[in-house]
Each structure stands twice: as structure tokens, then as C-alpha cells.
């Protein structure tokens, strides 16, 4: 008995074992990798072309805007920690800014808000018991992706555009969030875990 106590004294209880949810190095590493990937892809690849060739109205490219936020849902799937969502989006925003985004520093704020709203969406879905379902991920993704559409249209002061274009644009942003950020993000996360990428939760 005494020998057993001596063995126990040799170990210090760490923050991790005490249930403190501090970010691990792996969390930050994943955030950095996904944020950089997102920043490069968002800045350099014009995915909007996939929409512009067949959808006739302005705002239709919102249907693909979810690819800007998918990185944040993947990181959440791998870490289950909401601050990593914000870190990933901040890293992505910083990279977009450094690539010379036309919105300047505003693009960092937009990325931050998208991350914060996605985290809020996941928190809400968890409260409703939908934290791991496709529906929950879809709605959380919609929440995360929705913000930028009205934000950009409002700061662009596009009041002169027809109301139906505004409504369609916002609907497309939410739909894109559901399908790309939520459902595709969840699928990618599942494949990553299946492929052996270590999770940190």
C-alpha cells in the first residue's frame, strides 16, 4: 500500500487530466494548417466561376461561399473546441489580408465574425441535442456562413439593387453554409478521422 502511494506521488496531475480544456499544441497546429489552406484557397481560387456560368443573377456566387468557412467546421470536428474555430478563421483572414484582399483589414473582421457565429451555431445545436447530427452541423454551418452576405451587401451600400436579389443572396449564403460548411465539412472530418488523423478530444 505504501509502495503504491509512492508511485502515485511521482506523477503530477496535469491540466488535461483535471478536465481543464486548454488548447493543445496539436489544436493550434491544426488551426494553423487549416487556416493557411483556407486563406490560400479563398484568395487564389475563383470558385465563383462554377456558378457564374449557369446562374444568371448577381449574388448567385453566394451558393459557393461556404468554401470560405468549411475549414472552421473541419477543425471543430477534429478538436471539439470552439476557440480553435476562431483561431482558424483569424489565421485565414490574416492570410487573405496579406494576399492583398480588396477589403483590407475588414476581411479579418469578417473571418472572425464567421468563426464566432459558427461557434455559436455549434453551441446552440449542442444545447438542442443536435451537436453530432447532420441537421445540427448543417444549421450551425448556415449560421456561420450567413453573416458575410448581408455584411458585404450592406457595407457595399447596394440599396439600389432589387429586393429579390438581396433575399436570394442571403438565402444562398445560408444554403451554402448548410451544404458546404455543415454537411461537406462533417463528411471531410469523418474521412480525416477514418484515415487516421488524430483527434484531440
Amino acid at each position, binding site marked *: 500500500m505504501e509502495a503504491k502511494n509512492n508511485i502515485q506521488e511521482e506523477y503530477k496531475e496535469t491540466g488535461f487530466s483535471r478536465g481543464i480544456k486548454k488548447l493543445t499544441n496539436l489544436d493550434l497546429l491544426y488551426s494553423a494548417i487549416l487556416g493557411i489552406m483556407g486563406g490560400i484557397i479563398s484568395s487564389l481560387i*475563383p470558385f*465563383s*466561376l462554377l456558378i*457564374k456560368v449557369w446562374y*444568371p*443573377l*448577381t449574388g*448567385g456566387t453566394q451558393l459557393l461561399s461556404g468554401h470560405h468557412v468549411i475549414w472552421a467546421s473541419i477543425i471543430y470536428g477534429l478538436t471539439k473546441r470552439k476557440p480553435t474555430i476562431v483561431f482558424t478563421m483569424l489565421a485565414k483572414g490574416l492570410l487573405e489580408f496579406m494576399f492583398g484582399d*480588396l*477589403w*483590407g483589414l*475588414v476581411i479579418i473582421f469578417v473571418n472572425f465574425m464567421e468563426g464566432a457565429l459558427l461557434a455559436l451555431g455549434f453551441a446552440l445545436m449542442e444545447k438542442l441535442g443536435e451537436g453530432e447530427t447532420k*441537421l445540427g452541423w448543417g444549421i450551425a454551418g448556415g449560421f456561420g456562413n450567413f453573416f458575410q452576405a448581408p455584411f458585404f451587401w450592406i*457595407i*457595399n*451600400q*447596394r440599396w*439600389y*439593387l*432589387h429586393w*429579390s*436579389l438581396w*433575399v*436570394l443572396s442571403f*438565402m*444562398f449564403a445560408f*444554403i451554402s453554409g448548410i451544404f458546404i460548411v455543415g454537411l461537406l465539412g462533417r463528411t471531410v472530418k469523418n474521412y480525416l478521422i477514418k484515415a487516421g488523423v488524430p483527434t484531440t478530444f
Partner: protein
Amino acid sequence: METRNFYILIASVAVAFTCFWLTLYAIITLDIDIFQDPDTVIIKGQAIDGELSISLSELKSDKYEKIESHTFDIKNSVGREYERIYSGVSLRSIFEVEDLISGNPSLLYFKFRGRDGYITEALPLSTVFNNLYNETIIAFADGNGHPLFEEGPLRSVIDQSVMPIGEVASQYSVQKLAIIEVF
């Protein structure tokens, strides 16, 4: 089928229907001709008799004053200024060669309309006539002479220096330009 899945299905169908009808409504209300040749721009309006359709090949001919690789200063609504290089045709020279404007340009206004339903606010026509030929153009090529792909084949470009106070040039640089309305 589970009730939950049924509700999801109903919501999805409702959203899809809304998007479809709203798109149709926008196309009809905004009078968008989705079959208009993207290589043409139409100039029409109350201040012009009839309408004039100009093709890309006409724009590239020597009929109008060409502007080659001109650098435009563009400002967007968050105050960021940047430069873009375009080649195209002076809008003022089109008006002059075709003798389209009979009245006093300072009393007239114009709007750009894109094929995608984007319609600018009205600008005084004096913005075109009181400034240099190379400051308001219909662009058909980028700085390297390559055709405009994503943003074209035709687009309007206005230099920030000629914009009225409080207006930003980015809102009048209309991609997929289809119609110039003068009234």
C-alpha cells in the same frame, strides 16, 4: 419515414421553391434578357431615339477611340483604393461617333445594367462628357490584352477621379455589362 426527416424534406422543398420563383420573379421584374448575346452592349433610353446595339467586334474596330492598357484608380465602399489596368473603348467617343445625345448632357443621366441584374444608380452624363476620353470606358481586355472572362466579356470602368463626391467607382464598374441606359 421518420417525422423529423419528413419535416427536413418539407423545409428543403419550400426553400427550393422559394429560390426558383424568386429567381424567376427577379428575371422578369428586372427585365433581364438571359438570351442577350454577351458580346453586345445596348445603348437605349428616353434620351435616345430607338436603341443602338454594338458588338464586341465593332468595339474592337477603329470606329471608336480605343483606350489601350490604361490604369484606373478604383475606390470601394470601405475606402480602399486600388488600381486596375484595362483596355477598351471610350464611352464618350461612342456617344459622339454615333451622335446619340441630342440634348444638353448636363441635364441627362445614365445607368449601367449588367446581364446579372446589377443596375447602378444614375450618374450625370456630364461625368462622361466633361472629362477625358480615357476615364470612362467599356472594357473588353485586361492589362495584358487578354479578354475579360469572369468579369466580362464587357464591363464598364470609371476612374475614381471623375466620380461625383460621395460616389465610389467600384459600384459603377459593372461586370457582364449588357445595357447603358440614358435618360
